[in-house]
């Protein structure tokens, strides 16, 4: 047997392999085509039925609609192997994606890459290059004219807060701004969640105010559709309004807004503390400022909103893909009478509600499929109610349930808390 010769250590020439930094092409090029982006972490697969993580790949089947395919198309576009005119379906490849970050979490887990950032950057490029998805254009027009993503007149924005005795931050000052977001502001059925959240904060002695009819969109959804400029514009306006009102902390019940304020605004220089309502409630519970006095006899399961969960993670290679996983679970478990039964796919492995990334606005069939898949999973736990912490998720679930005639109840976590006090 020849002697085992130890050669000198040969290290990669490209420093990227040893000290990660963001690089669009490298992230796309180094896709290993391993398909981890399509399924939940194999250690977490509990059944064949609920083992997928990518709604787009599950619904559209072809690899072009998976994270891996999007990496291939990205490389082909960058290298000139594929041109915009070559493919009538190119926009669908990038936009038939909920931007839920499931693929991203799995790829970070195994390959140390950020495919969601690739998809995001490519969407921005498409918009910059005039490759606009027709279904998104009316939404963006509405945003530009009415400051909301709901195709509603801005005059109606403050209706959810009518009669609510709360500081008006357009003229008053408060330490905390409660941001209702576009969805709760214009959804007559869900607006009550915002009202309950404000009352809850007030009852706990928080110095809180709202922008009311002058509140504007966070810009996050437009950003995910590829409209980067909209994000900058709304970030500047919001930050200015908060600063003028002496706000230190922004609280919201919307996971999309939360993620936009906390992560995207921070990249634009924001120093405001940003909290989701579940973090505030969890904190108030721990400080003894919020006590549950009523029994709520109910079995529930909890849906991790993508933007509150895995998408809250700021990527550091090797670090756990943490999100706001525990606070909502702490709250639910603390409510007397409530039993939490977990679904199979949770936390970084959670299945999306379907509403994100501009899918609800552009691909209603895909959106409905994704929501229904989650409802089926929730039903499989035997729980009576599906609890979440984002109005986009709640709206999507309610719509799917009403369409399919399911009996499952859907609550925002604030509603559950309200029942217990």
């Amino acid at each position, binding site marked *: *047997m020849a002697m085992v010769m130890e050669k000198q250590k040969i290290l*990669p020439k490209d420093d990227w*392999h040893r000290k990660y930094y963001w690089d669009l092409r490298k992230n796309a090029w180094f896709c290993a085509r*391993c398909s981890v982006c399509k399924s939940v972490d194999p250690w977490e*697969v509990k059944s064949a039925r609920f083992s997928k993580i990518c709604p787009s790949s599950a619904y559209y089947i072809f690899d072009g609609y998976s994270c891996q*395919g999007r990496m291939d198309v990205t490389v082909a576009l960058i290298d000139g192997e594929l041109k915009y005119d070559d493919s009538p379906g190119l926009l669908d490849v990038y936009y038939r994606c909920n931007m839920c970050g499931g693929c991203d*979490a799995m790829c970070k887990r195994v390959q140390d890459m950020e495919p969601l950032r690739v998809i995001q950057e490519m969407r921005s490029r498409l918009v910059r290059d005039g490759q606009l998805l027709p279904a998104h254009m009316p939404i963006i027009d509405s945003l530009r004219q009415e400051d909301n993503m709901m195709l509603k007149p801005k005059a109606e924005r403050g209706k959810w807060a009518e009669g609510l005795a709360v500081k008006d931050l357009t003229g008053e000052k408060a330490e905390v701004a409660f941001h209702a977001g576009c969805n709760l502001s214009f959804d007559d059925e869900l607006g009550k969640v915002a009202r309950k959240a404000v009352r809850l904060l007030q009852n706990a002695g928080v110095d809180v105010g709202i922008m009311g009819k002058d509140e504007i969109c966070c810009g996050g959804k437009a950003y995910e559709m590829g409209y980067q400029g909209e994000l900058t514009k709304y970030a500047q306006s919001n930050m200015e309004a908060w600063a003028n009102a002496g706000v230190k902390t922004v609280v919201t019940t919307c996971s999309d807004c939360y993620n936009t304020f906390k992560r995207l605004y921070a990249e634009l220089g924001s120093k405001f503390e940003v909290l989701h309502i579940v973090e505030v409630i969890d904190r108030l519970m721990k400080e003894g400022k919020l006590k549950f006095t009523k029994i709520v006899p109910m079995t529930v399961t909890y849906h991790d909103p993508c933007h509150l969960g895995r998408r809250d993670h700021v990527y550091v290679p090797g*670090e756990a893909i943490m999100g706001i996983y525990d606070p909502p679970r702490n709250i639910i478990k603390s409510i007397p009478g409530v039993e939490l039964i977990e679904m199979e796919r949770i936390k970084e492995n959670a299945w999306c509600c379907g509403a994100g990334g501009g899918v609800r606005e552009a691909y209603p069939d895909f959106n409905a499929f994704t929501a229904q898949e989650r409802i089926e999973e929730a039903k499989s736990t035997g729980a009576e109610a599906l609890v979440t912490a984002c109005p986009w998720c709640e709206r999507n679930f309610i719509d799917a349930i009403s369409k399919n005639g399911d009996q499952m109840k859907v609550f925002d976590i604030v509603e559950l808390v309200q029942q217990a006090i």
Partner: protein
Amino acid sequence: MPLGDEKHKVIYNELVNVLGANYVCDDPAVTQAYSRDYYAAGMLRRRRSEFVVAPGSTEEVQQIVKLANRYKFPFSVMATGMFLPTAMAAADYWCIIDTKRMNQIEIDEKNMYAIIEPCSTHAQLHAEAIKRGLFNGVPETGGQASAFVNAIWGGNQGTGYRTGMASRNLLGIEWVLPNGDIVRTGSLATPGAGYCWGEGPGPDLRGLLRGVSGNQAALGIVTRIALKLYPWPGPPVWPSEGVAPDKKSELPPEKFKWYLIAYPSVEKAVDAMYEIGDSEIGMLLHHWPAIYFNWWWAKSREEFWSTWLEEYWHKNCKNVVAICLWSLASEKQVQYEEKVLKQIIKESGGEPIPKDVYDRWAPYAVNNWIRDTNACRWMRIGGGLGNTHIVFDTMDNALALFPAAWERLDKYTPPALGGIHSAWILPFDFCHQALGEVDYTFEKTDEVCQVVQQSFVELIKQDRQDSVISLASGMATLNITGRDFANVHLLVAKIKKALDPNNVSNPTRLIDMEKLEKKLAKAESEPK
């Protein structure tokens, strides 16, 4: 590519008639996703197919194949798609059959087998099986990969020591031949007998599937198989804690007992492995090179390279034999096997690796070999994975070929990264057969892929010269290698001709009929 021509339109419309518009696509942005894989060859020979289709049943596959024969268009097939160099488009009008919709799993608990479709992943099958106290071997590619594909070619399994090569677990098979006929083998050939048995009336056709690299769907498309399952003494749900990638998985120690034993040399390690095999103890048995400890432990590539420079795993995990004892029958089995193992360790001069080293590695990585294997993590280090030795023979043969493989590795280092001689030995069937593998990582650039390809060609030449059955020689067409292996290409050509008269089933792969026929005709016409 004749995307807009009349033949393309006719084929597209016919495919839509069979499958519906949702499951047929010819958009270049979609077919681009099928144009490469991680392998060096896959990177260099990128080509889009003209169509991709997604059938939902054996009958739909059959209809696609019949269309292919009628309109003379070539097709290939894929499942989860990690390894595609033999399925990528190689000609005009190429149609890739993506089997993602075919992912059903049925488990026959009483008779201990599972019927699965092409896109059933290992993790799905494993999750369903362990609920029922059953287990299937884990493919090296990882839990996200197809359990089906692993079994219809020379797939490895982490538990191969006891469960054999994956293909040894094949029972009944349903198979669409290249001419569109459906053949059902094993017990399926007997009406009402189901999938329970591999052998059946007539010759055992499984041999046509089970080469080292399979038949690459050049002899049709297998649509359903039954796989043998084994007893699972563990919990019904896979245990894990933490958030990825910082996760642990620990199985009940009274039912699963791991030993990681270091030896002074790989030869000594192999001697001990033979002893273990003779004693028929354990469920998993491997010789792992130090680099594997680094690969599986590091939670990021930064961590990989920093521990690589520290040489932590190299110093602490030299020539390690890894064995896991399972309580297949009872916990007493583990207790008994542990006594036998300790005796073997003592007599063979092995030493368990230090406890702190074991504790640093095992909870995070060791049970991967039962559930996930996670081999795709290899590619993150530099982007590519290469081998200078992948031989299926015996452990002795693996040992004998390692020096030449290391020499080849040295020759190609750099661009091969690392600079250490790896030596993975995975024995099958209680050490009667074994895989020997020398792996390396490389930076995935076109230039380096060229060099890696060159090293692969050299490896094929060497394997032919040594009459070695390897993945390398198995991947080459039989036109090249057939004469080194008892002229098997002539036999396969007759089979191919009979089953695929129009040469539409992944043509040029396995055997290039056009080239062979030209060559044979030329030989015929030459004066004797």
